[in-house]
């Protein structure tokens, strides 16, 4: 039974060039194509993977690369089904993207069992390179620790030293709150209060009033997706930003800001691994992306897929084989990373890709020149400070020294 593969395999074929002994490589982009994360990854990530293969000149370098994709529907069982099927039946060598921490952790487990490669760009959980790290998984773009650290440290340093947390009441929100709080306290800030808000709660006014009366300078939004969007929107309604308090989004993507509109989102502080309007190389990539994706600009997740595929192919090229997953990842850790979008960096022993992170502030409507011109760079967090120190993640791959 071929199942999803029949649909998927037809979707793309690459490297139709040279016919001599080529190394076959099959890449699967497994992400959310229909739900909450479809906008920030989705088909855009598939496009980014294909673009990376094309730009790498895979065919000329003796690699016969094929890219397929599937929708995990944000269900861990669907995600693992597809992953198992891809590895067992369809000969997929590496899986990319995979937002939704639950699905990502599950796929990481299957990947280790089958000795393949999993390069995650879309998921937030820092457990992927912590407690749950494996020799087959690389976490490329960001994680909760990096976001908390970037936003927390940079804001405290620029004077935002009292915080109130609006936390989504589940594991992810708690982790984000805990990590940020630690950073805030370590940098001399204070936490004035916090409130745990149930997930998918549409009305935040009550919690925002509590935040307002706490008189904290910064309201940290330890939530994601629709919850973040609704809390920002209602904060504008209650005049919280005008009242002098600032909002700090701990997990916000370009697509979220786009959906909020600048009028509501202005002044928001956020951390991101990548923004399209920073360098010429980024803009070039973004232009090509926009041309192929109805004018949208790529998110950091999509850029991360591009960068991750590029580095993966380098490792495969060096080994002349994609079959031994652990060996490919070991090679990826050996050679330094270098690509047009994320620049120079490295993949650490625990599977964490190390690169700088950036703190942005959302522009006022008057400052923006048009759609997707949203961010002003406020600070750069250098690569060596951007991610959790390798010894603190409890990753079994790292020997305590």
């Amino acid at each position, binding site marked *: 039974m071929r199942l*999803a593969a029949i*649909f998927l395999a037809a*979707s793309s074929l690459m490297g139709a060039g040279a016919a001599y002994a080529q190394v076959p490589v099959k890449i699967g982009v497994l992400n959310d194509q229909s739900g909450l994360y479809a906008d920030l990854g989705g088909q855009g990530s598939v496009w980014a993977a294909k673009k990376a293969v094309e730009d790498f000149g895979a065919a000329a370098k003796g690699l016969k690369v094929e890219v397929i994709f599937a929708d995990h529907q944000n269900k861990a069982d*669907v995600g*693992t089904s597809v992953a198992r099927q891809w590895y067992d039946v369809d000969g997929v060598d590496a899986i990319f993207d995979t937002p939704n921490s*639950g699905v990502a952790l599950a796929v990481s*487990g299957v990947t280790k069992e089958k000795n393949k490669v999993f390069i995650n760009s879309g998921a937030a959980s820092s457990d992927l390179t912590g407690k749950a790290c494996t020799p087959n998984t690389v976490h490329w773009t960001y994680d909760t620790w990096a976001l908390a650290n970037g936003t927390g440290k940079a804001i405290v340093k620029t004077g935002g030293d009292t915080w109130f947390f609006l936390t989504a009441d589940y594991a*992810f929100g708690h982790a984000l709150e805990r990590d940020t709080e630690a950073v805030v306290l370590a940098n001399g800030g204070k936490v004035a209060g916090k409130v745990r808000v*149930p997930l998918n709660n549409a009305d935040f006014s009550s919690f925002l009033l509590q935040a307002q009366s706490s008189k904290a300078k910064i309201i940290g939004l330890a939530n994601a997706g629709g919850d973040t969007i609704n809390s920002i929107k209602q904060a504008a309604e209650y005049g919280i930003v005008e009242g002098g308090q600032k909002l700090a989004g701990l997990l916000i993507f370009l697509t979220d800001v786009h959906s909020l509109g600048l009028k509501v989102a202005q002044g928001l502080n956020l951390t991101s691994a990548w923004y399209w309007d920073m360098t010429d190389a980024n803009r070039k990539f973004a232009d090509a992306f926009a041309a192929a994706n109805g004018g949208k600009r790529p998110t950091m997740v999509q850029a991360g897929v591009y960068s991750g595929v590029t580095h993966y192919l380098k490792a495969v090229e060096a080994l002349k084989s994609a079959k031994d997953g652990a060996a490919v990842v070991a090679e990826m850790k050996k050679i330094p990373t270098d690509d047009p979008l994320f620049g120079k960096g490295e993949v650490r022993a625990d599977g964490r890709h190390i690169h700088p992170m950036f703190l942005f502030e959302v522009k006022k409507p008057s400052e923006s020149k048009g759609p997707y011109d949203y961010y002003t760079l406020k600070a750069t967090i250098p690569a060596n400070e951007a991610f959790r120190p390798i010894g603190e993640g409890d990753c079994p791959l790292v020997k305590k020294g």
Partner: protein
Amino acid sequence: MSTSTPTHPAGAPAASGSGASVGTIFGVLAIAVLLAAPFGVYPVFLMKVMCFALFACAFNLLLGYTGLLSFGHAMFFGGSAYVCAHTIKVMGFSPELGILAGVVFAAALGFLSGLLAIRRQGIYFAMVTLALAQMFFFFCLQAPFTGGEDGLQAVPRGALFGIIDLTKDINLYYLVLAIFVFGFLVIYRAIHSPFGQVLKAIRENEPRAISLGYRVNQYKLVAFVLSAALAGLAGATKVLVFQLASLTDVAWQMSGEVILMTLVGGMGTILGPIVGAAVIVTMQNYLAGLGEWVLVIQGVIFVLAVSLFRRGFVGEVIAIIQQFKAKKAD
């Protein structure tokens, strides 16, 4: 297990005497096919189908044979999955004990929610179960032992009774098959017992059943608990297959899916839910590449099933056969 007598796949009310022997032959054939299937078909997929088929059968016991539409069956399916995963992964239970723990939990939860839900009838019953399930969903979301959005990952499959290595797909397949057949037989026996007859009487005319002196609420509650326990059995088994339990299993969409399976296959027929589960799971697998359309297609199937073929696949086939027989008799 005894394979000979109780398999009756035609699903028709066992009216015609000759049908029973044909049914037995069918049953033996079906078991033979299922025994050989993993050598031709991807076993993980088959196991998924069987888990959902058992879930749908358990649900059908309530909807098809008692006339109670539960819109909250995900709480038994998913609740049992969490308990099974937690006891195996964290407390080190063996797989069979983990499944048992899950089933016991589902039955207890079924008893409590059943006590509340059967206080209302019809549509209210559906809404009450939906609301209770939503409450349970929020509980699972916030409770620390479920792992929130991450779910419980990497649950070890272990060894059955300490002997049979379940990490091999093929061994696990036969365990899942055995569980599925067991669950199916339990439901079959329940339906074809005096107890099942009373349930059908309640479905057809509740006031009449009361006036005949049956304690309707007790019967309903027993059916509810039985259905919940079997749904839990399906959920716990699924944990072993996928080695995880997640919020998906307790979300209201899961309750909707099992209704869809039962409806498409044919509610009130013994084979219908199995066919429905196979159809829907296969469809979800094939359509994974279609993204947003999955939801729309499911909705369209719902509307079509309700508007045009309310008897479901199996129900329609039975109706055609009966029509054919009636004509021949003329």
